[in-house]
């Protein structure tokens, strides 16, 4: 297996580089097996959000996917448009989301339905302090 052979050689190279006494921490910390990231990735950036802030981030992701699909349609989606854009979830829940019976829905309606459904399942989502 060529991939395997290369890995073994790389492992040996790491070994030899640190063979003087003990294996250097750098050598054993850069084992190519996962989960690992190559060393060129330096300090982490960004913030590990939690609770309501994480939920806002999650809903922003959902909004981004909706907006990408809805942009050519004036920011709203019909069931067929949702289906064609690969948004099967929305196509499936369309009638429940479309409470106005308008035939097309906005993201805030998607969001309201998802939040009500979570609450009905006994998993109420935290109140968002920032608008996603």
């Amino acid at each position, binding site marked *: 297996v060529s*991939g395997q052979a290369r890995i073994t050689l790389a492992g040996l190279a*790491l070994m030899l580089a640190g063979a003087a006494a003990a294996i250097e*921490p750098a050598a054993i910390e850069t084992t190519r097996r*996962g*989960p690992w990231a190559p060393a060129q990735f330096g300090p*982490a950036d960004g913030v*590990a959000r*939690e609770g309501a802030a*994480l939920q806002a981030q*999650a809903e922003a992701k959902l909004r981004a996917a909706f907006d990408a699909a809805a942009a050519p349609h004036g920011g709203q989606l019909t069931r067929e448009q949702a289906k064609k854009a690969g948004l099967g979830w929305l196509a499936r829940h369309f009638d429940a989301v479309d409470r106005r019976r308008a035939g097309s829905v906005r993201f805030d309606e998607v969001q309201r339905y998802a939040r009500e459904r979570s609450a009905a399942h006994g998993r109420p989502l935290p109140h968002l302090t920032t608008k996603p």
Partner: protein
Amino acid sequence: MPVVHRLVAFALAVALAACGGGGGGAAPDATSPWFDPVTYSSAATASLPSAEERAAVSQHQLVLPTGTLAYTATVGHLTARHVVSGAPQASFFYVAYTRNAVDPATRPVTFFYNGGPGSASVWLHLGSFGPRRLATGVPSTTQPRPFALVDNQETLLDVSDLVFVDAIGSGHSQAIAPNINRSFWGVDSDAAAFRDFVRRYVEVNARQASPKWLFGESYGGPRSAVLALLLEQAGVELAGVVLQSPAMDYNSSCAIVARVDVTCAGFLPSYAATGAWHQRVQPPPADAELFVASTRTLADSQYDPAARAWLASATPPPDALVDQLVASTGIAAATWRSQFNLTPGVVRQQLVAGQLLGRYDARIAAPPGSALAAGGDPSLTLIESSFAQAIGPYLASLGYTTPSIYVMFSGAIEQWDFSHDGRALPDTLPDLAAALTLNPALRVVAISGHHDLATPFHQTALDLRRLPAPTVTELAYPGGHMTYLDDASRIRSRADLAASYAAAGAAP
């Protein structure tokens, strides 16, 4: 491939799948081997001109304490097509185990994959909950090698059908033109391709109504978070996600990133577990698991703030805390005083004089310079060649033969696009939270090993506790990254997983 051939292949796949399920009136004893003439490549630029959807099908029986379990093994390829464009993305290699004589339409189905990124699914496939497993004897290092392939009394096949699928560029999975393997070597493109494989498997095998589970290990954890969201968005509802030793947020691991606010507190309980195993903890704990659990409080309430002060302003730790850390881990005071935010590599070299401890399983030790230590991780070297040697003949025993060599690990990790959501390294908690927003019934189960120094169990718990509601079943057992290799922990985790599947089935 001409359209007519593709249709024939599709019809054949459907027919085989119908047999595989054991229902629908098809002969339950269907057996058809398949010599796959394609030579698959793990190279970054490799690309198949086209792909056939074909599989070997074979019949098997497994004798369990609860009775004899008859099942079908299906080994071959399915083509993942893009959810929107329908364009072929990749030919995924998979091994499916489906129980005979039950209705496949409503039976759970679980998709398993390892991590890396770049690893084949061979570790979960031949080590965890499939119908056969390699008896490693871990953490003993004295089991004769190569390990024997034995019937797996802890298989989950009595609970769920099992599908083991290889990431693109590993196993026998490969991209289809105009894509190349590297097209899918990124957090988002990889998960999207897995989404399209799952969609295809569900479609071909008529599993729309089956409760669907994802089971990803290591990098397979973050893959599962991203994949769960993509599947939910695409309208494929999941019943649950099992995160085996996951690296949910690369930015929270002090072994991956250097940052003043990222401490090694998530590792401390694993150091304590390792110290206890190697009898370095004073006084020796009467109950190792209780002791390990107690060190989580030490990590959060004392070590973490002290390590933050150390990183931010080189503030020396209080003497009493150093004493407590020495007693709880067996790591020398001088080590704590010089490297207070202690990374796992140092612990692996310094905890036991003259021994290098394993990264994946710190219970497994070998002297530097020995054969077991030569690869840098004795716990991986111990098992790697047995898994590599076993997979080809095992697939042949299921009727699948090929001139290709099964690629255990591709070079993907070096070329991987780790960026995700505007960050250089993936934090996949937002993805999981978004999946839970679309599917509030989604179950999340996390399994970790106390002696895993790659993805420490306490850090995994800290990452998952960022979720807004208490939604995660956190399980931790004695053992390494692959807790399932440990005979006692495999028995426990099987029982806990079966309970989670049953609870999902019982939910409204």
